[in-house]
């Protein structure tokens, strides 16, 4: 029998004979892809949790160092495949900040619209997968029905459905047209009309509430200690959102709220996501109303990355995303560091779930809405 390499080796401990190791993943239904967790179990209670990463490692950061900065565009869409456009946006904004490029206003609006549409699609994916973790298979298919409309609209302007590569340094690669605007308004109306259905099917369901309330409670202090961001942090009651706290792009021009939870349990995190859908819809609506005319691409001369460093943070669907770039005067980045939200959110898991039932572990982990390849990069 092979040995499981982990920090816990109590299985040989004669005094704790009843404890055993349970290997969850990398092909376990609840780990959404390629996370492996080694659990030290006492009956059905998980006493030790050891997430093991690296099964989805694709060397994105190293790839950035081996090619011109423009060659990293397609990679940005593949780090977090659930919500790719914020990653496009962050990278372009980073290079623009470094090279001091002004982006036309229409392009900024289009960026915001696509980012928010993508955020909605990503939240639908995350929430739907969470409900599957809890055992209900139907809601995710309704959510995918809505998400499909968004993907269709995004496909119309970006050309892809999942791994977008739409934003460019100095603007966006393709302008939006009247058809897209009409379509997006229809989508907004349709999604609004479905909220009530989700409330009745999922949120109000007593079993769902029992499974999520008081499960996986993250106090604010703990969330800050681990650097959790996004809906995980907001679910704990701290309304930290880069869009408000460190405004970028044209976000200051829009009127929207940051929903927060109270108890920091799984239900609050779920609720924050559902409420954010409405806020994103509001932003899109305002952006469509205010959409200015003009070019969507600035004149960009050859960009050389100045010696020195620069960073840019955006609010991705799962939390704060920061690109940090060190340049050396050539057009190849010397070093690109990506701070992804899921990494910090996952690191909560051990403290969060110590001593909880395996069913609660699944529930708590699902509510963190992790995209594992984003962590591995």
């Amino acid at each position, binding site marked *: 029998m092979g040995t499981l390499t982990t920090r816990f080796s109590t299985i040989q401990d004669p005094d704790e004979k009843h404890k055993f190791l349970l290997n969850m993943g990398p092909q376990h239904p609840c780990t959404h892809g390629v996370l492996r967790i080694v659990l030290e179990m006492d009956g059905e209670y998980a006493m030790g949790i050891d997430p093991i990463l690296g099964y989805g490692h694709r060397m994105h950061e190293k790839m950035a160092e081996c090619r011109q900065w423009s060659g990293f565009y397609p990679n940005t869409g593949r780090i977090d495949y659930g919500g790719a456009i914020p990653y496009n946006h962050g990278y372009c904004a980073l290079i623009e900040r470094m090279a001091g490029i002004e982006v036309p206003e229409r392009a900024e609006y289009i960026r915001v619209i696509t980012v928010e549409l993508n955020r909605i699609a990503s939240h639908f994916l995350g929430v739907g997968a969470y409900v599957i973790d809890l*055992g209900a*298979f139907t809601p995710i298919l309704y959510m995918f029905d809505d998400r499909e409309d968004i993907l269709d609209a995004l496909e119309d302007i970006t050309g892809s459905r999942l791994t977008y590569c739409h934003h460019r340094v100095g603007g966006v690669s393709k302008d939006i047209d009247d058809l897209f605007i009409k379509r997006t308004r229809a989508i907004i109306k349709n999604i609004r009309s479905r909220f009530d259905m989700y409330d009745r*099917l999922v949120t109000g369901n007593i079993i769902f509430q029992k499974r999520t309330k008081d499960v996986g409670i993250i106090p604010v202090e703990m969330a800050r200690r681990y650097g959790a961001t996004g809906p995980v942090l907001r679910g704990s009651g701290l309304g930290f959102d880069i869009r408000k706290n460190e405004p970028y792009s044209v976000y200051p021009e829009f009127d929207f709220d940051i929903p927060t939870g109270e108890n920091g349990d799984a239900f609050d995190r779920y609720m924050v996501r559902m409420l954010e859908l409405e806020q994103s819809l509001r932003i899109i609506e305002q952006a469509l109303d205010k959409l200015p005319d003009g070019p969507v691409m600035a004149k960009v001369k050859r960009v050389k990355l100045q010696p020195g460093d620069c960073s840019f943070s955006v609010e991705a669907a799962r939390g704060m995303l920061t690109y940090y770039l060190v340049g050396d005067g050539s057009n190849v980045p010397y070093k690109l560091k990506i701070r992804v939200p899921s990494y910090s959110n996952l690191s909560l898991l051990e403290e969060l779930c110590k001593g909880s039932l395996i069913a609660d572990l699944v529930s708590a982990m699902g509510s963190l809405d992790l995209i594992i390849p984003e962590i591995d990069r």
Partner: protein
Amino acid sequence: MDFIVDIIAKYSLVRILISFSLLIAIIMLNAIVMGYLERKICARIQRRWGPMEVGVQGWMQMFLDGVKLLAKQLIVPREANPFLFRMAPLLCFTPVAMAFAVIPFSESFYAMDLNIGLIYLLAMGSLNVFAILIAGWSSNNKYSLFGALRSVAQNVAYEIPILLSLLAVVLVTTSFNFKEIVAYQSGLLSFWMCQPVAFIIFLVAGCAETNRVPFDLPEAESELTAGYFTEYGGFSFGLFAIAEYGNLFIMSSVATTVFLGGWNGPFGLDFYSGPILGVFWFLLKVFILMLIMIWVRWTYPRVRFDQLMNLSWKYLIPFSLVNLLITAFIVKII
């Protein structure tokens, strides 16, 4: 013709053989029909088409799936206990077949008429848990073992409300015999009207007893991959599935006989009934109950283990006890 009837009457062995082969055919057919309905209904609930490719509306899909399962190699994991591992699916299937023997499809269409039919049927129904325990243990897989352990605790806890709710009816009929229970419900009265609490408790507990969502903890997919049958493939897996649908049928037929008036036509219209029509009414009621269980399955999330236990001990058992007391009181007075 007389000759055949004579033989059947004379030699009980022939009768047993015939009825058992019929029963097994019914169980298989039930699994195929239910499997198809489940896939179709789940698809329509999720606004998909479901199987569509083989035959009109894909009606042959389950037959082909059966053939596929039969053709697969039976793989026994290296660390498993091979004997028990192979026994478990059979152990799961046999009690189901035995329980089918007493199911009264109509007044004259049944394999066996036992005085204690109800008790026998419940006893067979709960034997299922042994098979699950053996399957989980012999697979030598931690997830399977989890599923097996959960299943045992769950079945023990839910046996009690099932018995208590049925007892309330038995107090009225003073018989465990299916025929008599049904005979009691001829006319307008059937027990779901005068024992609604017992009926609901029976349905909920029956759902749990047959491991259906929201109580499918032994196979909880997102937690335990597939629970006790994680390691099974091929037709051993098929046997588990058939037994699951068989158990569903048994639970629904108990509910039908005890609460819904069995083979009697609805609204006490006697000219509707008869040996053949009786089978029709019986099957109609059973299938309506099973379709409701499918509908429930594709709507709800799964409960957690302690909540499952709470539901039984804190809600179902006290309610069924009170219900039983009240029934006893009323029966005494009348």
